[in-house]
């Protein structure tokens, strides 16, 4: 879509906030004519150990550096003659076999930071590692191309920095009914009455009223739209499984939402990594498989792209506690039906050419992945969102 036209639409929509039916009409046109591509982001928090996720099982260095942590050849799910998956990732193997998975190896950024908070911050704001931003990359997407708070939804209780823009923020909800109930006290409706005060947003109080009305309207919209669909699929009965189930429900009810954000934590495996990571990857893979199947049953998978990342990978060498310490580059999973590069997008990182800390040297800047998704999937100008130009990759 023409960017200027989109901009015009979004600014028009926001100035006409008090005429919701008009906005709705706009949205209906947009969705029916353009198809409706959605992005689902899955954040693995804590720094998932990429090397025990996608495993170079023929590389002697892998076994040499991880005598107690390497996964036995026989247990590894082989994808190619050299590379396989963690035994928990059987569901991912099935997606791989169908051509729904693209694995991008060795993703990172220059001058890597090994602090969880800071590195997650960098991934969420898409800045250089020596620059700090108070807005996230999806937030800036909303600033430029979003229309309402529910243009992006974080399936959680509160918003990550990734979802906060300079002017427009996403909305967070893991329970549409609870959010709706919180917002719908008739008291709130009565205090703003049916006012149509155009200069409301010029001052701070007006901005609060405007936000209140927008929140009420989004909460109501999300609840009433999504309640029409209920998932028949079985998901793992845990927080992440529920997040994915809710996301599927939102997508399958055709909410006008472009981006969904979910996360699974606990990957900071300094101690006794094997069992912990196995359990977490199992939760991840089982939930994602159920999610994909749920979307396929509802014919929405073709318009959905799923991006999985973690703030960093972990050190090649195991530590003294049968775990790993914070590292650098990591793999990113892209899941979808329309992938141009199915399977492996690029080769595994070298295990012999490491940096001073004994960490992988990154090959692909994570922001080139964002740029690709923005440009080719969400079809917007990625340089406006990322404040910088990156060469797109060929995976979609």
């Amino acid at each position, binding site marked *: 879509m023409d960017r200027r036209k989109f901009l015009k639409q979004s600014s028009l929509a926001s100035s006409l906030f008090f005429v919701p039916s008009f906005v709705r009409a706009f949205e209906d046109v947009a969705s029916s004519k353009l198809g409706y591509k959605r992005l689902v982001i899955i954040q693995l928090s804590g720094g998932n150990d990429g090397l025990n996720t996608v495993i170079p099982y023929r590389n002697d260095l892998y076994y040499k550096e991880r005598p107690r942590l390497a996964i036995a050849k026989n247990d590894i799910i082989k994808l190619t003659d050299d590379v396989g998956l963690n035994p928990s990732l059987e569901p991912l193997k099935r997606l791989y076999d169908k051509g729904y998975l693209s694995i991008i190896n060795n993703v990172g950024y220059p001058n890597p930071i090994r602090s969880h908070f800071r590195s997650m911050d960098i991934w969420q704001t898409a800045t250089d590692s020596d620059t700090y931003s108070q807005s996230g990359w999806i937030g800036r997407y909303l600033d430029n191309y979003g229309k309402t708070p529910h243009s992006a939804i974080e399936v959680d*209780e*509160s918003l990550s920095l990734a979802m906060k823009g300079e002017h427009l*923020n996403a909305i967070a909800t893991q329970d549409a009914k609870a959010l709706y109930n*919180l917002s719908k006290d008739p008291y709130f409706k009565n205090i703003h009455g049916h006012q149509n005060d155009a200069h409301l947003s010029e001052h701070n*109080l007006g901005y609060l009223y405007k936000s209140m009305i927008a929140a009420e309207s989004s909460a109501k919209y999300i609840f009433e739209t999504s309640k029409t669909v209920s998932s028949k699929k079985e998901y793992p009965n845990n927080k992440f499984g529920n997040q994915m189930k809710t996301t599927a429900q939102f997508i399958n009810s055709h909410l006008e939402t472009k981006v969904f954000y979910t996360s699974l934590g606990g990957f900071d495996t300094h101690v006794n990594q094997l069992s912990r990571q196995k359990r977490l990857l199992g939760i991840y893979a089982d939930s994602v498989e159920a999610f994909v199947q749920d979307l396929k049953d509802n014919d929405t998978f073709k318009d959905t792209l799923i991006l999985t990342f973690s703030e960093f990978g972990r050190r090649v060498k195991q530590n003294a506690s049968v775990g790993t310490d914070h590292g650098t580059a990591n793999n990113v999973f892209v899941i979808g039906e329309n992938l141009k590069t199915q399977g492996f997008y690029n080769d595994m990182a070298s295990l012999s050419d490491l940096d001073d800390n004994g960490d992988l040297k990154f090959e692909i800047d994570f922001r080139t992945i964002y740029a690709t998704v923005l440009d080719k999937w969400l079809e917007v100008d990625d340089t406006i969102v990322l404040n910088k130009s990156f060469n797109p990759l060929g995976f979609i």
Partner: protein
Amino acid sequence: MKAKHIQHLYRRIGFGILPTELEKLSKKRKKDVVNSLFKASKSMTLLEVDTSEIKDIFSGMMNASKRDSETLRKIQKISRKKQIELNAAWINRLTKSPEVLREKMTLFWANHFVCEDNSIIYIQQFNNTLRKYALGDFRDFVNAVSKEAAMTKYLNTKQNRKQKPNENFARELMELFTLGVGHYSEEDIKESAKAFTGYSHNLRGEFVFKQRAHDEGEKTFFGKTGNFSGEDIIDIILEQKQCAKYICEKIYRYFVNDVSDKNHINAMTEVFYKDYNIENLMRFVLQSNWFYEDNNVGTKIKSPIEFLVGMKTMVPTEFKEPKQLLYIQKLLGQILLNPPNVAGWKGGRNWIDSNTIVLRLKLPSLLLNDAYISKVKDGHEDAQIDAKKAMFNKKFGKRFKTEVNWKYFNNQFQNVGINDFQNHLLACDVNDSAKAYLQSLEKVSKQEYCIQLMSLPEYQMC
């Protein structure tokens, strides 16, 4: 001094003022009211939770030849628990301290010299450094911050060695702490980073200067050349008037108005540049006439902490579980001691998103009144009130373990007529449709009316 002005003053340099206190002050002159604020903040009370458990482990470790990972994990575990305690203690302090101005300034500086650390010892020490210099000499302040254990960790000055400089601290020192972006060159960053090589700390969190890691070579910084130390660099930065201006702008936006006023900021800069004395600067601001002008009153959006502490100031509310207090901060988007990154919270309209506005409007009734906001029409009785509250309590009561002291509120507001409530609880005028709606409702009781007012978007303003 006019009541309206006292209220404005206390909303900005504190978290609001109760009617009884207001009555006392309104007999005084402005000059005396402002002076009394500074007098009350002359003293400094450290904010401390009991960390003896960790300190004991530390002293054991000083003698041990090796630090085993199990001990480190134990420290981390205690530290995490203690951080929650410190968070709750800080909020409690903000609610109750007689050193009102010092505490509000500390909160301001915590979002200026932004830092976080997982060690309770280091972050508590850092927090008290903010408190100590909050109204002091800015030069000493910057130097103290540069030598704090938590800061040398947070911005990697610890890793900044002669052989392998790390520019993180030098960059943020200029970009965020003193000059603002665009007022220095990349070369200035490189050169000044050399001056901070060797800054480190010991296990107890005391500053250690590692002579061998320090670069004794010549550095060229802002056109001057010499074997500069970290202190020298800070001196040269403070020679730039831009530094005074940058700080004044930030103080203006925090205490006066989101929108900068060039003339007022210039006047502030002249005062501050003279001696970099923070107290003198704040006296100038609070004594000025423009601080009390209508366009500066009730025009700022409260931060989550201002909102929460302000509510607790009017109606004392104790959280039985510190974790619940932490959870509410998370949902509101500002957890004390846990900033998003070194740039801090953006503030202003940035506090507001769909989730936070909905929660802000609902929180007073949720915490103080069993989620009930009276909507009974004028001349009618609120027949269902007790039943509704009881039902909520049965269903959700366990979620909020709070103790609300309405008795205290009723005492404080004993002599306040119900028509004057708005002036005490709201900083700005109520918009017309809300006003009309409120007028159509029965004023059931002072408590119910207070909840109605606190549930307005207007209550979010200060």
